């Protein structure tokens, strides 16, 4: 009898139970994702955005992006296309300005206004934690929706989260994160009525000074088929930035 109990325990440990323990809770996965994304350092990077809209052709945008981690200040200055070159955005404390190079004027804008006429908003560039915005989706049985699966050849955790505040863009998201280091590989974003609106892929990552950063992000518009945006980062630096960078004068200087 004792032997049978021991055998059952061993079988349980080898078969079911270990795999149950191997899958983290969604809250833990979100914490790990936040941790991976948290640079805890200043950032300067060159971004190239290729926007491919159905029936409208391809548009390329290039910009320099500087962000001060401690104060969450950021500065964006456009370097391409020629028509937008020199235009920029500066966010310092509660102020968010748009700079127009041709008129050399700064205009106060809100966090909800579009950046460079794209779908990106000023608020999207603020530092936010996944765990502050989302919570795990719990099904009718009270279980979290987190599973292990293969994404291509990579082993991933797939989990579903729902918004816990009402001002996030997507009320529901499904994450695919790499099992070994919790790097995000794919995100599906759903509308309030449950329609898939966007799929984002993060195929290339790099490690700079011990921190992971996506080198390429691909956003597929699932609602309006044929729209795709690719964001590529280069020239990444995490060295401490001079506070003078986050000033109107520096934005004007860069715009020349």
């Amino acid at each position: 009898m004792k032997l049978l109990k021991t055998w059952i325990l061993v079988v349980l440990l080898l078969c079911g139970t270990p795999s149950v323990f191997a899958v983290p809770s969604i809250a833990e996965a979100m914490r790990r994702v936040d941790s991976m994304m948290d640079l805890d350092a200043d950032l300067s990077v060159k971004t190239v955005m290729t926007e491919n809209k159905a029936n409208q052709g391809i548009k390329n945008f290039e910009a320099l992006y500087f962000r001060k981690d401690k104060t969450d200040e950021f500065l964006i200055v456009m370097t391409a296309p020629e028509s937008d070159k020199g235009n920029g955005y500066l966010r310092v404390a509660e102020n968010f300005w748009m700079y127009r190079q041709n008129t050399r004027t700064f205009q106060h804008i809100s966090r909800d206004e579009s950046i460079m006429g794209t779908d990106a908003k000023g608020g999207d560039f603020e530092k936010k934690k996944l765990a502050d915005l989302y919570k795990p989706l719990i099904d009718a049985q009270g279980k979290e929706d987190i599973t292990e699966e293969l994404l291509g050849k990579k082993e991933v955790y797939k989990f579903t989260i729902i918004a816990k505040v009402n001002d996030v863009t997507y009320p529901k998201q499904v994450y695919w994160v790499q099992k070994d280091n919790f790097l995000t590989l794919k995100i599906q974003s759903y509308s309030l009525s449950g329609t898939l609106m966007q799929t984002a892929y993060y195929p290339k990552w790099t490690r700079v000074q011990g921190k992971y950063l996506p080198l390429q992000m691909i956003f597929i518009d699932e609602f309006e088929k044929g729209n795709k945006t690719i964001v590529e980062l280069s020239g990444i630096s995490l060295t401490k930035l001079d506070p003078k960078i986050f000033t109107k004068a520096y934005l004007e200087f860069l715009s020349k």
Partner: protein
Amino acid sequence: MKLIFTLSIRNLFRQKRRSFLLGSAISFGMMILVIANSFSHGISDNLFNRMVVYMTGHMEVAIMEKSRLYNRNIRDRDRLIGIIKSSVTGIKEIVENVSTFSRCIGNGKNDNAAFVGVVMNDEMREFLKSSLLDGKVGDFTGNTWENPVLVYSNKAKSLNVKRLDTIKARLLTLTGQQQSARFTVVGILKENNIFESMAIFTRLSDLKPLLGYRPWETGTLHVNFTRLNDPRFVVKEAAALHEKLKPRIAAIYGTVSRGGRARKATALGFFDTDEAKKILMNHLKIVRGGIPVPGSKKNAMVSEDLATFLQLKVGDPFSLKYESQFEKNKEIVNTYTVAALYTSNEASVKNVVLLQEDSFYKTFLENLPVPPSDGSAGFYVPKKGDSLYPVFSPEWKLLPQTKTGDEWLKKIHTMNKTRWKGPALDVSTMYERASDILKMESALNVITFISVLILFFIILIGVINTLRMTIHERTREIGTMRAIGMQRNDVRDCFIMETVLLSFFSCIAGTAAAIIIMQVTGMITIDTTSFFSIFLVDKHLYFLPTVKSILGNIVFILIITAVTAYFPAKRAARLSAAEALRHFE
């Protein structure tokens, strides 16, 4: 006088060809003046009483949350409508304005459109009767189709949809969340101008939940007045409403509890400013803990008396339970942590829980509490004039009134900068919201006026020239009349009367011609959706002649011709009788 009148009439008929030609010129001028004025009035009427009504309303009342222009939500619609009705006169209708821009996908074609929520009332039925090209009103009001919509023909063309096709749309909720929905095209409308074709009409009751509004909430309220002849009336009424919309202090009256102990209490939010905190500290003494800092969610200051009763100390959780004003039998329960305990000499604040304003508005706005009846135990709000009054969060911040579109934009930018989480109430008029349209209307009026003045200048030169010729030709006649005893003033008055009579008859003829031309051109159908379409009503030129303006034009022309005739007439009167008789050509 009778003699002068008779002589003037006789002279007019004596020189039939000249009178006819001069009269024709004046008639033409009058005709142009009447047509131009009627057209200008038509444009004003079209802009004020049609376009502005559809686009912004004559007056708009909006509540914006989190200092964001597009985060507009009137949480207690009926209360605000009540205030408007009691303080504004001449209201024709108060319309719930719920609309959103959207990306639409039709049959293989995509386009942008504005979804506009409408209610099927008599006016809408009348509008559909004249505008519905394809479809039935019953399909729009009934429950057969999923989210029925009415689409203008141009938009239907750009989306490649016809009746009973489906449009998929990407929308944003009022808090900025992505929303998507399917709509069924149940009717195709004919557009009258370029502004209209952008709109897709959907039922207000369908659009509100899609955008995240609850039944008792609404976007903004458009106040439209009975036919607006004096637009400045709106400004006066807006000022009256602004005065009535001064906010009260926002308060949540509920039950504070911990464990088995509970007591009725009031939760108030306090402004997160140094000045407000200073005033607060003049009245309260913190005995334990510290004032919650911004962003410290769910932290509260509790009176020591209340804390003693509930056996609370700093760091302990407690719950605040209250009834929702709109969802019957729904109790809202929030848990807070004690950040500080305070004492006060004022007995009235012993059952008060103080919340940092972000934390307070989060629950207050989401679930408006039932207002307590007077004298309820544990209810406290400072009275107006009380030194604590400016410390506590109001129902809304009343934004100052502005006069122009530029001033209004500046006000909104200033609001954006504050990033205040509470609601901001704004009363605006078409002078701010539709300032571009009104500027265009003023510009058109000025252009019309200048054109008419130039035309009249040319005609008046003709009048002067004709009179000079007449005087020259009739010099000997003047001499004869002066010789048989006619006075200088009579000679002068005779010429002036002659001109005025000619002008009067010409004006009558010109007015008649203008009315005929307006009737004829008004019957021509102009099928365009270009910019020109803003001058049209139901695809026809729209003239609005008024008796007042026509009489005004006649008086204007009579005065101006009389003044023009005065100087040549005076010259004729000054001629000596002997010299006039000697005159020979």
